[in-house]
């Protein structure tokens, strides 16, 4: 049965690694639901956070194939219960909808969305949370005219009390 998995992949910071990572999935016809790349707490090591829906067997094999790549230092996979994860969403709303008060404003308050920018004619709202939460806010704001909506990929931190250094050593 397919489940949602978060993969954490630690790599050298070299041109072309993103390609090396993604072809492992492409070749096996696995859809990458989201991907985020950032620096990690260790100098020169980049952290890829990917979300895929797959069976236990496939994800285990894919992670071994990732680790086999010469420039990939370590690849791990987790079920949702084993990670703390967040996503961020930005919403561009017409100013008048919110200035007038009423329902739209209540929705914003209820979801603890932040106003991060007020521009001529529009306001940018920010909401961090799980995909389900940002999606819910979007669904509720939609009738009021969302001008633009964007959501980041998942970022995730693993629950076990281990430093990256000890993970990489094993």
């Amino acid at each position: 049965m397919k489940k949602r998995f978060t993969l954490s992949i630690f790599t050298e910071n070299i041109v072309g690694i993103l390609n090396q990572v993604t072809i492992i999935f492409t070749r096996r016809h696995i859809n990458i639901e989201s991907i985020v790349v950032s620096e990690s707490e260790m100098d020169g090591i980049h952290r890829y956070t990917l979300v895929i829906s797959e069976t236990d067997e496939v994800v285990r094999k894919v992670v071994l194939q990732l680790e086999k790549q010469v420039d990939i230092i370590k690849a791990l996979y987790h079920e949702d219960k084993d990670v703390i994860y967040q996503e961020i969403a930005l919403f561009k709303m017409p100013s008048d909808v919110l200035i007038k008060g009423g329902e739209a404003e209540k929705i914003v308050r209820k979801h603890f969305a932040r106003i991060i920018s007020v521009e001529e004619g529009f306001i940018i709202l920010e909401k961090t949370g799980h995909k389900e939460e940002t999606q819910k806010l979007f669904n509720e704001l939609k009738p009021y005219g969302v001008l633009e909506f964007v959501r980041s990929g998942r970022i995730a931190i693993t629950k076990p009390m281990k430093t990256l250094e000890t993970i990489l050593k094993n």
Partner: protein
Amino acid sequence: MGTNVNKPSHKAGLMTGAEAVVQSLVAEGVELLFGYPGGAIMPVYDALYGAEDQLKHILTRHEQGATHMAQGYARATGKVGVCIATSGPGATNLITGIADAQIDSTPMVCITGQVMSSLLGTDAFQETDIIGISMPVTKWNVQVTKAEDIPTAIAKAFYIARSGKPGPVLVDITKNAQFDQVDFNYVPFEGMRSYKPVPVASTDQIKVAAELINNAKRPFVLFGQGIILSQAEEEFKAFIEKTGIPSAWTIMGLSALDTDHELNVGMLGMHGNYAPNKLTNECDVLIAVGMRFDDRVTGDLTKYAKQAKVVHIEIDAAEINKNVTAHAPVLGDAKDILKQLIPLVKENSHEQWLQRFKDFEQEEIDQVIREELKPSKDIMSMGEVIGQINELSNGDNVIVTDVGQHQMVACRYAEFKQSKSMITSGGLGTMGFCLPAAIGAKMGVPNKQVIAVIGDGGFQMTIQELGTILESKVAVKILLLNNEFLGMVRQWQELFFEKRYASTIMVNPDFQMIAKSYSIKTALIDDRKNLEQGVKEMLEHDGAYFLEVRVGKENNVFPMIPSGVAVSDIRLK
């Protein structure tokens, strides 16, 4: 790597990037490289022009030939094969050989020229994204845009290509990097944090494996190229002799153990021997050493050795539990693991169990082998030609094959007494591999008899390399088994497509004339009575030789495990 005093030493100091490429190769102990010049690699060729005393370049007739030659050289010598090509089409022509080397774990370094770095991404003349194209089929690749990065990139390339599970590496060098100056000082590469080539084997796992082996009633060993790559031939022999376990090989493992060894029970897989395939599904412990349970070996995985406990000795973590679940996986270098395993296993013999293999072998001899080696019909078989080579030599040939029926027949019947003597395209099944691979092998082991066993289809895929034989005077023996068909596909059409011979009938040229035009001595055998003499002349001839034998057009290779069927359902006819 020990330093050989007779080898030319590399130069140091201020030089161009192109000279640095050449001196890096010399520093890595490269003696031969195979390649083809072109615009973006011209500075390196210019540097080679002045360095003939340090490094010999073999001009091929196509870049694909260069990769297969490098592969043949690597497989015959155990050293890294090196090839070189220009940008664009030169680089893309390497891809088939690179993919072949990747799937067969052949150490190879490919150097490609690239357009000036200022032109990258502009669709410049002969620009292609060879880094992107080769990424899925290389163990590692890198693009170098500055002269000063050349020595480190090449040092790293050799380190990665030859270490752990070997593989092909590509170094793409822009033309400006070849022209620019570098203060050259070669430092061999010694390791990186993201790549641990040889996992340290767990002694606990080795004990678990030993326990399983010691308690087995019907143990069975499968061995692959891992034995050859880790140079574990002696340890492997000691291990099976001490435990008395019958052992069968994948085609990549062929020649790691003498074919006439009493415990060698033959070839696994689709056209392998009857006994090892049958008894895979009867053994109680299956010990796989340096092999990866390819689908051509296992047939239907859901019916593969389900009754057995599996010990898997393997260097690549991604191969463990990939196709077959291992009860005792032992991750590490085969030589090291076998050394530790030998003292832990009990001396044993499995007479009755071995007899089962012999009984099935007898059945195969009666129903297949005898007729193949000594046909009762007038028309010649591929097997009898291979048998003739066995009779006239002592198992000390290097046999290189192409892909198809003749490949299976050569693997089934050729006799070997020395390791690294069978060179074939196993994983990728690359037609056209044989002729250039045989040229590379012969250049790697010039004192050995190298025989290219080839079909009329595959021969024409890289036939232009006859030009390399002519130019570089390579004394390779070409044995063309001509059935005027793409035989293996035809066999499948006969068995599974109602003899609808779609595009498998070959309209062939006069091969004798072709070989003669390259000044190669030739002979054509179309009658059995001339076969022995023909093979003898080929073997005894001093230079290159082309022997064409007309064999049965519609002969089939048996036994056979049809696609998607259990190994134990192998058919004798």
